[in-house]
């Protein structure tokens, strides 16, 4: 069976989403076709707008539409605390707990030199200068509890401790290997409270 070309193009485009195979893509395509035009336009517009307006904060690396981001601007946040996370979405996960009131540093990955992720790519030099320039007293490392995440934490601790800063690792009550973003709020709040010095 062959589709009209326009439909085929839509299905193919939807197939690019993570976890979406041809069957689901087809279902989504038919869903869109069944909706009113304005709704489809607003979905498409939201995607383009997000793509055009969002970028990574040059200071902390989290997703933002203003520079620096709202978190970095917020004077109520504790500037003596920096929480290091792997991905921009981890910031949202930690913010959701409402337990953390410091600033962030998003690595956009974990130290994995064979994959081309070295200290420069993770913007570690920028993290170190932030620590030195802003009188940071504690760095909380919340990288994922897997080998790369733990090794990255150990690296950062080794390099930051000589600056006279307390370095803590959030305590995961999680099985080895799972990502931070899959932890529930309660587990995360406890992990944050129970952080231990490295």
């Amino acid at each position: 069976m062959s589709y009209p070309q326009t439909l085929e193009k839509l299905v193919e485009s939807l197939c690019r989403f993570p976890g979406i195979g041809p069957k689901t893509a087809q279902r989504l395509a038919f869903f869109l076709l069944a909706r009113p035009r304005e709704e489809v336009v607003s979905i498409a517009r939201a995607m383009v707008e997000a793509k055009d307006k969002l970028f990574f904060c040059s200071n902390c690396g989290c997703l933002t539409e203003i520079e620096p981001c709202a978190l970095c601007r917020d004077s109520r946040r504790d500037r003596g605390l920096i929480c290091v996370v792997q991905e921009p979405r981890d910031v949202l996960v930690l913010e959701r707990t409402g337990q953390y009131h410091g600033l962030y540093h998003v690595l956009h990955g974990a130290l994995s030199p064979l994959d081309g992720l070295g200290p420069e790519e993770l913007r570690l030099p920028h993290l170190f200068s932030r620590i030195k320039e802003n009188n940071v007293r504690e760095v909380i490392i919340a990288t994922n509890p897997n080998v790369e995440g733990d090794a990255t934490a150990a690296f950062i601790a080794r390099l930051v401790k000589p600056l006279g800063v307390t370095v803590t690792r959030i305590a995961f009550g999680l099985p080895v290997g799972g990502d931070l973003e899959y932890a529930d709020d309660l587990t995360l709040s406890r992990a944050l409270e129970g952080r231990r010095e490295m």
Partner: protein
Amino acid sequence: MTERSFKTDALVLLSRPLGEADRLVTFLSWDRGKFTAVARGARKTMSKLAAGVELFTYGHYQFYRGRNLATLTGQQVKEHFHYFRDHPELYPLGLYLAELAGSVVSGEGPAPEICNLLLEGWRRLIEQPDPQLFLRAFELKLLDFSGHCPHLNGCLQCGSAAASFFSPRQGGLLCGDCGHAADRFTVQPGTVALARRLLKAPLQQVKQIRPQGGQSHELGRLTGTFLRYHLDIGESRALSLLKLFK
């Protein structure tokens, strides 16, 4: 090679996030060489696969090969080398061993010698008083197993025992009379003896070997230039991390 599902002992060389919750894992396997497979859902906290697809893991794995990539379907972890997580100085070294072992295996033929070497390397790295010497031993054995062992018994052209030059391009030692290879450099007899000893000794005995002044450095030059010339391995991305501690 055509059956859809297969099992093999393997080591995890590289494990990277893929899509929403999966991992793309590069295995170095006893029976199937080096290949990449998808571990579905391995980043979810309750995943049964998560623990087995971590870097520095040795296990027995089951796969299913679809049209494209192989998919991991089951596993029994045999050994985890957890110490790499807490030792920032050893993490780059463990990665370097993986980088080297991975670079000499291509295709999906059996690679038992290289697998055993890497497994033993990951096991023994933590007990080394001189990790750099251990890397040299690993490099020499790797060259040997992959059919590129440098010639270390006298001049490779005339056989003279008084061979005090080393040429990576020619493949080993040269005496003063034979071949004036442009890339040759002098090596002390003690360094050559050290290289021979490291080649012969099992990795577990390397920690008992004490090189003398200058030998380690010279041996590093010997294996480094040889690896670059014969295996096209330049400066290691993994080892470059160590510079941070200087």
